């Protein structure tokens, strides 16, 4: 698991976010992730069907069946219903800082693939091994 500060997904507010990513083993269901991860982070909303969100989840199914997971947490607030960036019914909340226990809990909830990220320079080679190219989001800020 690693954490990057920035806006690698080009979120249109253009503000910095916390991006926590890891690799889950084959068979992990993307659709199940919001509920699974929110269970580890009480009070967080990682999908917007309840009208607010602290961030969002992105995944990428890799050729070997593993699932790259990235949780992007907002470090800003935007509850303006007139915001021109396309979330009129969803308030964005700044996410609280996560504890080491919460970070680990998320990883444990999905499981950890044999190729995982640790925030070191070796991550570049690991991401390439998973099939990512230099222009892909996981490489940004790595």
């Amino acid at each position, binding site marked *: 698991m690693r954490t990057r500060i920035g806006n*690698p*997904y*080009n*979120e*249109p*507010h253009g503000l910095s976010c916390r991006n926590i990513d890891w690799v889950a083993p084959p068979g992990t269901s*993307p*659709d199940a*992730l*919001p509920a699974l991860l929110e269970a580890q982070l009480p009070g967080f909303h*990682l*999908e*917007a*069907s309840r009208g607010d*969100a602290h961030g*969002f*989840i*992105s*995944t*990428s*199914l890799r050729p070997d069946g593993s699932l*790259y997971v*990235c949780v*992007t947490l907002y470090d800003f607030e935007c509850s303006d219903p007139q915001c*021109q*960036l*396309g*979330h009129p*019914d*969803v308030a964005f909340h700044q996410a609280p800082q996560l504890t080491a226990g919460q970070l680990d809990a998320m990883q444990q909830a999905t499981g950890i693939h044999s190729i995982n990220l640790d925030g070191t320079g070796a991550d570049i080679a690991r991401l390439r091994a998973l099939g*990512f*190219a230099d*222009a*892909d*989001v*996981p490489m940004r800020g790595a």
Partner: protein
Amino acid sequence: MGVLAALKSIVRKNSAGSDFIHRRLNLIEGTNVTLTVADDPTNDEIDVTIAAAGAAGAPSDADYLVGTANAGLSAEIVVGTTPGGELGGSWAAPTVDATHSGSAHHAQSHDHSVAGDNTALVPESVEISGGPLATRGDISPAQITANQNDYNPTGLADAVVLRLSSDAARDVTGLAGGADGRILTIHNVGSQTITLKDENAGSSAANRFALAADVILAGDDGAVLQYDSTSSRWRCIGSSVNTGGTPADQSITSRMVSLTVSQAEVTTQETTTSTTYTDLTTSGPAVTLSPGVSQDHLIFVMSRCQNSVAAQASYASVAIAGATASDNDACTTGATIDHYRMTRITHAAAVADGSTHTMRYRVAGGTGTYSFRRIIGVAL
């Protein structure tokens, strides 16, 4: 015979001449003369009245044209015994002098150049009932070897056609010699590109071109310009090239059409729960269109997509030339079943050359899943 009868009269004309002596005098009415004879016994006389029989004579104060002055006339116009001015010969057979007679005068009336007065003909309208129609007066200036500002080659003032060539791709930012309504045809007779620059500050304002876009004349291309004195600009009224502007509706039949097309695809299955448009983990796909000029673009985006929550929409849209993506340009599904959808085709007007269009994604709620994302861009 009585005494009286024995008397004889003596008649003489004008108090001179011969005396005629007879007993009887006969007064005879001549032409246009009437005689009236009346007896006046009281005075022992015979009255003879002589009168003119016709109308009165011609007036002496009429405007007669006469060769020489006449004392009996008061308002005559004396024109001389022979014709004068542009006429010669006699009144019986007048002639016209060389300047105003025959083909020479005809030619001068229709050729206001060398032999004429150099005055432009300004007819209300011109109708040519038969051909051919030719505009001569072409000039072939020296080859252009640098970009030209306020271009003014020798002979431009009298030229109708400019035959230009260049040693490499060159720009012309303006042209001298503008006068209201003047029409000038430019031919690129070389093989290198000559570009007429739109509103380029390299030339003085009155010499610039007002064009929809730069007119790029490849070899053997041509353009017809007209000077608009109201706006003090040369305007293009026709060319053999695509100016890059938005064309009017046109019908193309049996012609080859060259379009700049680019497409890209990402097949990887990826998801997002973002409610604002973001990249997916493998960003894009994206296309960059570089037709060489600003043009309208048609952008097609398509993707297999679904959402984890029934009735929550998943959107796949496009950030046109780096702008924020919009639902208006998105293909969308609100189903939990994997759908292959193709968006409405987005028409982006006058997009800058080299612009990149990138697909972006969002959901209204739930988790949106996308795969086989494809974008196709066409520069028109």
